[in-house]
């Protein structure tokens, strides 16, 4: 089963991390990059989407998380990535409906993280 990974964030920053992410999700599906504006304007189908948000590249993260996790049917898996996750930001993201909130500096663990996340989601859905 393949997934459509959509990375929402600023196109310019953090090239290394984007590369690592692309490699990590490559065995599971294809990664598409969108800016915040493009993500908001886009029509979404009921395909299996995994939304990855680069917190530093999205201005209204909470609104977008809430939209993807609570208002779309079926709800998408939403993972927010932050350079330095603080406890209060973590709380806000989970309350908004994020599936998970992870530090960008996850190293090689990113691939395992997504594999386990999607294995869990298959149980759920």
């Amino acid at each position, binding site marked *: 089963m393949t997934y459509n990974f959509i990375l929402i964030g600023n196109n310019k920053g953090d090239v290394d991390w984007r590369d690592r992410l692309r490699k990590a999700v490559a065995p599971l599906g294809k990664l598409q990059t969108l800016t915040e504006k493009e993500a908001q304007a886009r029509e979404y189908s009921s395909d299996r989407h995994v939304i990855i948000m680069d917190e530093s590249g999205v201005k209204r993260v909470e609104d977008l998380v809430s939209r993807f*996790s*609570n208002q779309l*049917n*079926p*709800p998408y898996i939403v993972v927010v990535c932050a350079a330095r*996750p*603080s*406890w*209060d930001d*973590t*709380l806000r993201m*989970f*309350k908004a*409906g994020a*599936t*998970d*909130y992870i*530090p960008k500096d996850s190293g090689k663990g990113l691939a*395992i993280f997504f*594999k*386990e996340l999607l*294995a*869990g*989601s298959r*149980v*759920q*859905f």
Partner: protein
Amino acid sequence: MTSMQTKILIADNDRAHLEIMTGFLKRKGYSVVVARNVPEAKRVLQKAKVNLALLDVRLTEEGDPYDLSGLTLASLAPNVPKIVVTKYPTYLTVRMALRSVGGAPPVAIDFVSKPQKLAAIQVAIEGAVANALQVAQFKEFFEHLQNGNREAWKTLWDKEAWRLITLVQRHGFSRTVAQNVCFEVFRDLALAPRIPRTSALKITLVNETVRKIKILAKKKPGKQGNRTRTALRKTAASPVRLGLAEDIVAPVINHNVSKARLLKHMKNAIGDLAVREQKAIVMHLFEANSPDEIARKLNLRRETVNRYLRDGSAHLEAKLAELK
């Protein structure tokens, strides 16, 4: 459920905080039960019918940053909605409390830091009570669905559970509530005497158990850490007893990771258990009847396996050091 009917457990080893919270909640009309440590809280959760629990994260040792006994306790009482309260909020504690793993509902429904005002705790409690009301309404809705067409319901859940969650959401409920309710109903359904457990439920339960074990494995060694580990080990379900041994390392094996990582994962997952249990797990994992078989399957020397079986985790640690 009104505040008059709501019985709340407050588990905290900080007496001053316990008194303030008890007074505050009683003034708001809630019925309050208090617990000052893990065994007391566990007893209350098992015997008294509480509608909500406010659990401190560091219930065993206030000064120990690795003490997550409140979160472990929370995961032992899946039927009671919990709000995690702590004086030392961190990224990891929030994530452990609110993250949903493998389709199971999160350990807690909300997280409050102690320096916040009492009003914040009140908002969290009111939210939890409202949530409980939604759950009750949903159970009614599902019962109706179930009575209407039992076979269709089963098929729906087994094959297309996400549609069910979507269906719930269309009635104006949030995803979290939908998932919680679906999970509760599924569990009730699976536990009903005439309906056999489905494989999906088994996987969910397995994931939940693995998560608990991972929380245990995160404890760092040290004087205070060891005490916490001992305390936690007493409350943790034995994987041997649950027959889940192979599932502990399944995530690692499935990812085709190296032998070193597998050993490391095993050490993390079962290092806390008694040597006898570790041996049983190793035997069970490789479906082996003898050390020879394990040696063959792990591509290790027979002496190495024998030493591990004799000395348990101590040897595993030495082996890890070697591999590093």
